[in-house]
């Protein structure tokens, strides 16, 4: 008998229950049984309904982008541990404060040095290119990391649609700064709105992902809903959240963290174990969920795909 796996609806890496989660569910059930905790079941299901995001339909796993031999983080870890200063500077702030973020209606204006400037509605953006699931390492400048199954498509797909002119050398990403929704904007910790940027070749690199989901669901507000960037070979802050504007420009954009501390945060901010942050070493990182630290990989493990873009550059100078 011929057994064929269905290629139409393959199982996504994010759908496979991790062994740890499987075990913890079993352990939980055992405990629940042991304490006669059947009464606790309705409470549990209510809680998991609330934590559940909106499933994204028609997502296909892209087998070119997997992180082999490294376990996926749990969606729960991903949703409860993130930096989003617009909602407060503590990592426990965004999951609570971002709950009320309005993600519909939402538009992204694409403008600047392009032949076809346009405003995309978020729902139209979903259909711009097929949604893929890609598993990337995500390394924060604060020396922690996760492995996340993102959903989106290469930013290059959008860039091709707007036809950049020859003088478009950089791409600037402007994220939402709405005082009525974002209590963190009262703080002057950064110069709002949060602006990030990439060089044109970095923006066109197939790894650079315009992201609308994670773990098979639409992005949660605290993770940058409804649309964010993911640039896996750079520190996480380069991957702007809740983007409202993409501008093609001639000069290197003045980005939020560079403005805040140019001696600590560079425009490139490529993951580099050899270039320390002034206040801490970047040689190793704590993978969320692990006890020991891991050695940080050059370009976060994506050297094969990106190192050539920086050939001949002094990465200590252009950090």
């Amino acid at each position, binding site marked *: 008998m011929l057994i064929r796996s269905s290629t139409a609806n393959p199982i996504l890496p994010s759908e496979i229950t991790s062994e740890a989660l499987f075990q913890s569910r079993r352990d939980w059930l055992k405990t629940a049984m042991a304490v006669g905790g059947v009464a606790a079941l309705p409470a549990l299901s209510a809680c998991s309904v609330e934590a559940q995001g909106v499933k994204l339909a028609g997502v296909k796993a892209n087998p070119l982008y997997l992180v082999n031999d490294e376990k996926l983080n749990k969606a*729960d870890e991903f949703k409860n*541990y993130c930096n989003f200063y617009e909602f407060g500077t503590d*990592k426990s702030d965004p999951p609570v404060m971002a709950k009320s973020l309005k993600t519909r209606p939402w538009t992204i204006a694409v403008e600047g040095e392009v032949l076809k400037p346009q405003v995309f509605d978020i729902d139209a953006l979903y259909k711009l290119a097929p949604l893929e699931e890609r598993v990337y390492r995500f390394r924060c400048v604060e020396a*922690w990391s996760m492995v996340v199954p993102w959903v989106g498509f290469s930013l290059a797909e959008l860039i091709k649609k707007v036809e950049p002119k020859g003088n478009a050398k950089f791409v600037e990403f402007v994220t939402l700064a709405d005082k009525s929704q974002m209590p963190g904007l009262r703080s002057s910790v950064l110069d709002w709105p949060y602006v990030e940027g990439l060089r044109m070749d970095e923006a066109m690199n197939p790894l650079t992902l315009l992201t609308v989901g994670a773990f098979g669901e639409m992005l949660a507000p605290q993770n940058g809903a409804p649309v964010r960037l993911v640039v896996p070979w750079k520190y996480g802050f380069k991957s702007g959240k809740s983007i409202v504007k993409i501008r093609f420009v001639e000069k290197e954009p003045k980005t939020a963290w560079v403005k805040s*501390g140019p001696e600590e945060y560079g425009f490139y901010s490529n993951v580099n174990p050899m270039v320390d942050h*002034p*206040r801490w070493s970047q040689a190793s990182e704590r993978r969320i*969920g692990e006890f020991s630290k891991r050695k940080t990989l050059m370009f976060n493990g994506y050297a094969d795909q990106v190192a050539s873009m920086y050939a001949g550059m002094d990465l200590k100078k252009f950090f």
Partner: protein
Amino acid sequence: MSVLAKSFRTPSSQFVQRVKWLLIALALLPFFRLALGAPLGWLGVNPIEFITRSTGTWTIVSLVVTLSITPLRRVLNWPWLVRLRRTAGLITFFYAFLHFMTWLWLDRFFDWNEIVKDIVKRPFITVGFAAFILLIPLAITSNNASIKKLGAATWQNLHKLVYAIAVLATLHFVWLARRNPNEPYIYAAIFALLLGARVYWKYLAKNQKNR
């Protein structure tokens, strides 16, 4: 003076002893939260970061309590408060030690190369490390036998190191949280007030003598 006020001014030594144990019990609550929370998963998805921050916070809070005792004693006119001062100091050392060990073990995994590099290269670690080293002689001599051995005057002078420790600990926190120093500035303000009060009172006393 009311009876109540009087009993607060000169309480029985049994009462002071009870307050001391209450202080110790309260001071250990954060420690038990960490000790139980680590295995039970109360500390969030990055428990080691939580422990690092929590032990640091409680070190500086304990230091605030320690340095508040002398001014409070004067303002409230409760001389017996001084008998809690060494206890508060030892609690400070307890949390500083946990904070230091968290760094040494859970952050650096006893990689001495990395540890020395951190101390030399990173100013916030340099001052934090210095503050911890200075705490050690104070913790060792926080007992009656040491006061007897050193003599009250020498002991008093030695324990003035706590002012340097407060400055170093504040710098440690301010420099660590460079980009968002709101919280450390609150502690800086409290320490400025506590140390300023001492300078002011010293100045008053000097003026009175001269008159």
